[in-house]
């Protein structure tokens, strides 16, 4: 029983759960109304991809990729390449998060809200005001 579950997980189950996590991240970005939640969901999405890469390098009888005396064969160590790649990906995600947070702070200062529909409404109001001001200016020039 346990062996069947293990085999199923190794073949399909873990990948399925990873992709559910990935799609939850995408869904969060698409559906959430709050900009900060979108940012957190973005991080979750990236974690899912990092985990997907780590799954690819897994070996059932391998140890961590630090060379030890006595273990010489390639099958004894977990594949180090995905780990190296994912270090880069994690760092890139930190950079994106930092930039995103500073943009969020500017949005909050400028518009006073970080809810998407409020924000769009306020932008609309601002542009209407601008248009009216412009019209008045033109009329002033004409007269």
């Amino acid at each position, binding site marked *: 029983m346990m062996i069947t579950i293990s085999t199923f997980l190794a073949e399909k189950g873990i990948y399925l759960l990873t992709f559910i996590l*990935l799609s939850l*991240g*995408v869904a969060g*970005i698409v559906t959430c109304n709050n*900009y900060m939640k*979108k*940012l957190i969901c*973005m991080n979750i*999405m*990236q974690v899912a*991809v990092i985990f*997907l*890469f780590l799954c*690819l390098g897994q070996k059932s009888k391998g140890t961590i990729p630090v060379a030890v005396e006595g273990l010489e064969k390639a099958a004894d160590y977990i594949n180090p*390449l*995905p780990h190296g*790649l994912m270090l*880069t*990906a994690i760092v*890139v995600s930190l*950079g*994106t998060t930092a*930039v*995103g947070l500073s*943009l*969020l702070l*500017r*949005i909050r200062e*400028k*518009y006073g809200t970080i809810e998407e529909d409020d*924000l769009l409404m306020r*932008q609309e109001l*601002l542009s209407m005001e601008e248009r009216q001001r412009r019209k008045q200016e033109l009329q002033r020039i004409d007269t």
Partner: protein
Amino acid sequence: MIENNLPVLIIIVPLCAALLCLLLTGINRHLGRAVVVLAVLASLVMSVMQLGLVIKNGPIHYAIGNYKVPFGIEFVIDSLNAVIIVMISTIGFISAVYADHFVTDRRPLLHGAYNTIIALLITGLLGMASTGDVFNLYVFLEITSLSAYCLIALGGSRGIVSAYRYMLVGTIAATFYLVAAALLYGATGTLNMDDMAKILSSGDYDTVMLLSMCFLIPAFGIKMALFPFHGWQPSAYTHAEAGTRPLITGVMGKLPAYAMFRFFYCIFGTDFRYVRYLMLALGVFSVCSMLYGSLMAMWQNDIRKMLAYSSVAQIGYISLGFAIGTPIALAGSFLHMIGHAFMKGGLFFCTGAIRYKFGTTDLNDFGRIYKKMPLTCGLLTVAALSMIGIPPTAGFFSKWYLASGAADQHYWIYIAVLVISSLLNAVYFFKLIEKVFINEDAGLKDKWSRGPELPLTMLIPIVVCFVAILGIGLFNAKIVDVLLLTLGEVGL
């Protein structure tokens, strides 16, 4: 020594300038900017040398760290990316020269940081063009996108919101790209593009290729703003920072398209089972993109927004070439990539110059502006005619190659859409020309005291774009010959 290391030096020189720019700006106010401009100029000179070498000796393979090919990172320069690298460094150089007039805050920290980000954007674009490794492409893609987010956010309060939305969507795209890379890595076990192509063509990998394509088309579609994925693009292009807008609009959308070409034609190849469906999907997207972009551009009153929607249409032309797939059509789409970079860049150089001088971007204010800015309006006219596709300019020849490629494959509907879209282009660009030359003078006031038309550093980009648009048109046969050196092998 320099000749052997050209591919990597082209990227490292602007990178070093970018890294040191802040420090040097602290020492002297003008030193940082001068170093950045000189570094980009150096990489322009080196890229021209590299193009000569590639034409003479064939593709260059440069293994970083001297490791054998699948183990290290490799740069592959063939005639396609050599041409594209020349294009990027030319536009990068002229916009680095041009951008300085739009810096309002001249504290050393901010001035230095601004120049740093321009140099890093150019570095990322050059890297995307020359790398031959799947994961390295991701890193360069992220450098390009991060600097673009920052430059878009600098363009005022609207810019911040559009940069934030672009950031969310762009990260989804980058993540999808990584998923596709994981699928390909899981099937082949390598990250090198040439090696991957070799393995993929040796066995039955059709399902993997189909699935990774399902992730790659949205990923590159979002980054290059193809029709169903273009939502972020108009507001981002409209509200980007004025000095670097030509670089962002002209070059940034083209490099994901180039990467898409690399994946579809160089890695997947044209002889796998689902290639027809893929090309059909791309074709539908590009047709919708061409029609939608042109139609939306007709209704805009702000010139920046009009040009942004027109970019959606022009990206459609480029991916239409990929959807047709013959060497001639591919050459047409690459010619359009290069030509459109100069056209759209030139139009935005003009828009920026008009805004710099008169402080307006509304089309209704442009009446008889040609009397005040003759050179700028000359470029505006030539670029507009080239966008429509009037014969001696670059735009006509790229459309001609696309149409003849489509005729070879009997895709008559593509030719019809090409013609309709060109006519729609004509409608809104003639509107622009009419405003500039015929309409009543709107009585704009010059923001600066009377003097020459523009400062010299703003005239250089305008003249360069003018020459480039006509030059690409006149010497199109030579350029297509160079492009066909590579395209002849990968097309259908």
